[in-house]
């Protein structure tokens, strides 16, 4: 199968456009020294599943980046993480009816990458998360979890477990249904 390559002035067939798998839904710049960022208008019935990435920014100190749905924390967040450092020392932890997913990302003052997927955030069903995090030599791992309610969310929030966030852009992409 060949895939289309578009050039300036081309007619865009509906069949090609409707095959685009990932769509940028929202782009949000992060301010300076904020303890949390809430991104509204991120989820809708247009997409069941989403990819969210925050890059280009930094934390005020080495910290975890927590994720919670909506603008306020609650409970019913469950998840587990497996991480390893570059000395091959492994570590495990879990969230058990917590107020947020704890390990959407890990960052430091020089470099932070937060990258995770959300499943069913706007459906009347449990929301799932799968994250991978990188804190250079210290914490490289994955985290998966779910939120035990059937709330249909339109927003989410990021918050370091200590310190603040500065800069970079949070981008929300929808996976085409």
């Amino acid at each position, binding site marked *: 199968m060949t895939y289309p390559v578009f050039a300036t002035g081309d007619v865009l067939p509906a069949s090609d456009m409707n095959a685009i798998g990932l769509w940028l839904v929202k782009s*949000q*710049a*992060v*301010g300076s*020294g*904020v*303890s*949390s*960022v*809430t*991104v*509204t*208008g991120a989820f809708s019935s247009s997409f069941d599943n989403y990819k969210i990435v925050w890059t280009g920014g930094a934390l005020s100190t*080495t*910290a*975890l980046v*927590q994720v*919670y749905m909506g*603008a*306020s*924390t609650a409970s019913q967040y469950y998840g587990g993480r497996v*991480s390893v*450092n*570059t*000395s091959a*020392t492994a*570590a495990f*932890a879990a*969230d058990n009816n*917590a*107020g*947020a997913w*704890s*390990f959407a990302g*890990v960052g430091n003052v020089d470099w932070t990458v937060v990258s995770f997927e959300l499943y069913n955030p706007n459906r009347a069903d449990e929301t799932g998360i799968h994250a991978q995090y990188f*804190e*250079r*030599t*210290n*914490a490289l*791992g994955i985290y998966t979890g779910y939120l035990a309610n059937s709330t249909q969310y339109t927003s989410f929030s990021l*918050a370091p*477990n*200590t310190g*603040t966030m500065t800069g970079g852009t949070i981008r929300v992409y929808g996976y085409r249904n």
Partner: protein
Amino acid sequence: MSMDTETNNRPKIQIDDLIREMTDEELAAYEALQADASPLPNTTSDPS
């Protein structure tokens, strides 16, 4: 009229492009979240 106590030392919350100090309710929820947070991953120096 807002009954929130405003200072220059409160954590800031960002909602889309709006950045402001947390309200009393937001601050209480934020402090509860931080108190419940998991510990940092294990750390070691870079072996290289």
